[in-house]
């Protein structure tokens, strides 16, 4: 299973980003193999529609779930259409590691409609 977490930087120790479309980085985490990879979020540079562009990126990477602080309306609609689950976290998690652990433990809430 592949999950993508919005992040302020490009390691597992990085602070998670509470924004989805305009998060600086995305961390792709493979739950089955415990491997990961960081990507710069190109959608940051978009004038508009960053949520759609970021969702397109996740869809192209065949991600199963997106984890972020919140999802805007365009991101929500795109991720729903792509069949990608959306889960949210708040600022209590200080690293991508902590968010992954919370996801595994089932502590993150799923966004309705995803």
């Amino acid at each position, binding site marked *: 299973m592949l999950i993508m977490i919005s992040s302020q930087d490009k390691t597992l120790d990085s602070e998670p980003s509470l924004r989805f479309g305009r998060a600086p980085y995305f961390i792709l985490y493979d739950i089955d193999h415990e491997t990961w990879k960081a990507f710069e979020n190109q*959608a940051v540079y*978009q*004038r*508009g*529609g*960053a949520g*759609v*562009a970021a*969702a*397109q990126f996740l*869809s192209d990477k065949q991600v199963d779930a997106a984890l972020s602080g919140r999802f805007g309306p*365009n991101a929500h*609609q*795109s991720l729903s*259409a*792509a*069949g990608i689950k959306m889960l949210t976290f708040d600022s209590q998690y200080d690293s991508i590691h902590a968010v992954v652990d919370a996801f595994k433990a089932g502590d993150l809430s799923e966004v309705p409609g995803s």
Partner: protein
Amino acid sequence: MKPIKIAVASGKGGTGKTMVATSLAASIQSQTPVQFLDCDVEAPNAHLFLKPEIYQTDAAVIRVPVIDHHACTACGICVQGCEFNALAKLKGKIIVFPQLCHGCGSCTRLCPEGAIHEEPREIGTLSIGVTDTGMKYFGGKLTISEPMPTPIIRQLKHKVEYEADSLSILDSPPGASCPVVATVHDADFVLLVTEPTPFGLHDLKQMLGVLSQTGSPGGVIINRDGIGDDRIEDYLKGTPYSILMRIPFQRNIAVGLAQGELLTDWLPEYKHQFQELFRIIMQVIKGEMISL
């Protein structure tokens, strides 16, 4: 003589653009017939002062893509061609986000299968009216929740007949981004209304930056004169722009405006000041004054 357009802009919101634009228009209407354009389509309010009788209202539309999913092969060329992320290819299907679409038509032209056609989507209205003094009024209004004012401003400006000798006054939106540029880019003169505060100066600088790109001459009006400090005067000393008028910070002005009264009706002594302002602007436009 060619048609003349005078735009009133500010940068910072709430500095008095509409007060200045409506007062200027009302002061000169008796000498020169004026066409008034309310280009602040996200929050139009000039009609509150001019009180035009509206005799025509049309829909403002942009043309957005509609995908024929039978003909579409989901090649994704339209997605890559869209500058605004209004299209996405998700689960092998092209999805349109109409609110992100600027109506440029690129996707329709790029589609190798001819699977895209365009349909009009209403994003606001364009109204035409006339005031009891015979001033022609053109007002645009963006529908609530719609994100894009610029197409309405363009369409509003197209509605106007710019005959020889006609004089148009354009009330700009606040800010210094696309909607403002769409309003002021072809103006013969841009009046910048500001206030002597850090925020007023900050945004005035942005508007002077816009004018340096469009090449229009301009001048500054300080509203709420007496508050703040001399930072506007100090800054303008190093620029080709000067202060054309000052309107003091006075409770009595606000009392009249809050009742929907034109400044020049409420305090008629301002009428002469605006007529004088217009005379100076016309001298600059005609090239009789190179710089202010």
